[in-house]
């Protein structure tokens, strides 16, 4: 109160309460800005959720690739819908991604040159995904491959495995 009585004090009129105590105006200001902040963050969060689709109309990342007998020995078979190569070599089966590790173009198996080539920027890979030539930074990943109970090949694109792991049938 002594402050309010002293007109020379620059904030004289605002100093009604004892020092250290939160003034009503400041309290309401903080409450308002706090509420707006929380509402803003909440809006951002639900907008983010809104923009993330929950259902995708895309090919399933886990799929059956048919009976192993469909694939002859020493063959590389491109499955267009899944963008995966099913490779059968004497040591067994493996599923190699057909999506280039450079910028995501779909590669092609060139049987005459015995390699996988990317049409976009010229990366080259061996049948087992090993990189022959850039600009791809990494070899093509291998996906988990297993047999279902009824004897079909099952590929899981969500799971990448070491290239040494092959499926013996």
């Amino acid at each position, binding site marked *: 109160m002594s402050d309010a009585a002293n007109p020379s004090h620059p904030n004289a009129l605002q100093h009604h309460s004892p020092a250290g105590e939160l003034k009503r105006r400041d309290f309401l200001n903080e409450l308002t800005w706090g509420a707006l902040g929380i509402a803003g963050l909440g809006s951002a969060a639900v907008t983010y959720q809104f*923009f993330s689709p929950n259902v*995708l*109309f895309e090919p399933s990342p886990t799929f059956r690739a048919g009976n192993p007998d469909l694939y002859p020995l020493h063959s590389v078979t491109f499955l267009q819908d899944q963008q995966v190569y099913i490779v059968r070599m004497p040591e067994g089966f493996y599923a190699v991604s057909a999506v280039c590790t450079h*910028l*995501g173009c779909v590669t092609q198996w060139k049987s005459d040159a015995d390699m996988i080539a990317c049409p976009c920027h010229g990366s080259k890979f061996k049948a087992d995904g090993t990189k022959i030539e850039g600009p791809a930074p990494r070899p093509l990943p291998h996906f988990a491959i297993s047999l279902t109970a009824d004897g079909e090949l099952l590929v899981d694109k969500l799971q990448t495995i070491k290239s040494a792991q092959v499926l013996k049938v």
Partner: protein
Amino acid sequence: MATTFQSTMESLRSSKVWKSIFRRGPANTNRTRSLAVFGNLFLHFLPVKVREKSLHVRASYYLGSISLFLFIVLFVTGILLMFYYHPAAPNAYRDMKDLQFVVSNGVFLRNLHRLAAHLMVFMVFCHMFHVFYRGGYKPPHEFNWAIGVVLLLLTLFLSYTGYLLPWDQLAFWAVTVGTNIISAMPVIGKQIRFLVLGGNIVGENALLRFYVLHVLILPLFAFLFIGIHFWRVQKDGGLTVKSRGGDGQE
């Protein structure tokens, strides 16, 4: 003839309707001219005073003006194309082909939109190079330079989002490659790509998202920033950057 026109204008100006719209007399003094500017929504945000030399038109003025002109061409042709285009996966490509082969003058409008878009990117770059080499980024123009950089990015984003809409092989792979560049961003890259495409692959969701960005969100921001850009040109004392010749002409 001239007198008939003048007397018609005279009686029009003294009519109740005219006065209700303009609410002032003729703009023949500095004060009434200022009032004319203040009383007009489209003029009132312009600077009250500008230097006369900032209004001089020079050859280099045209690079920015051509960019604006191309933007207007793109705006008009783009709206017309929207009347025939469905942003959905089986329709988009067919609509684009329909515009080329079935719709009257469709091929003209589509190509006008396409070529103006290519040209606008080129012209915006020319404008930027010109401003850069003339030192147009220096004070007092540095804020407007930053606005210009935003406009460059908006131009590129508009160009890129429009590239997907024909929904052909070129569009599909260009967007596949481009959005994979986004996922190279550390930590959040993959998530941003997922949000931009609305999925993991370039599909229906991606087409619709790019369409909404292309026809609404990006043009809205482009209009806003073009407005600020032009306003600042006048505010910062016009386009004059002192040349080495020292005559103040570019």
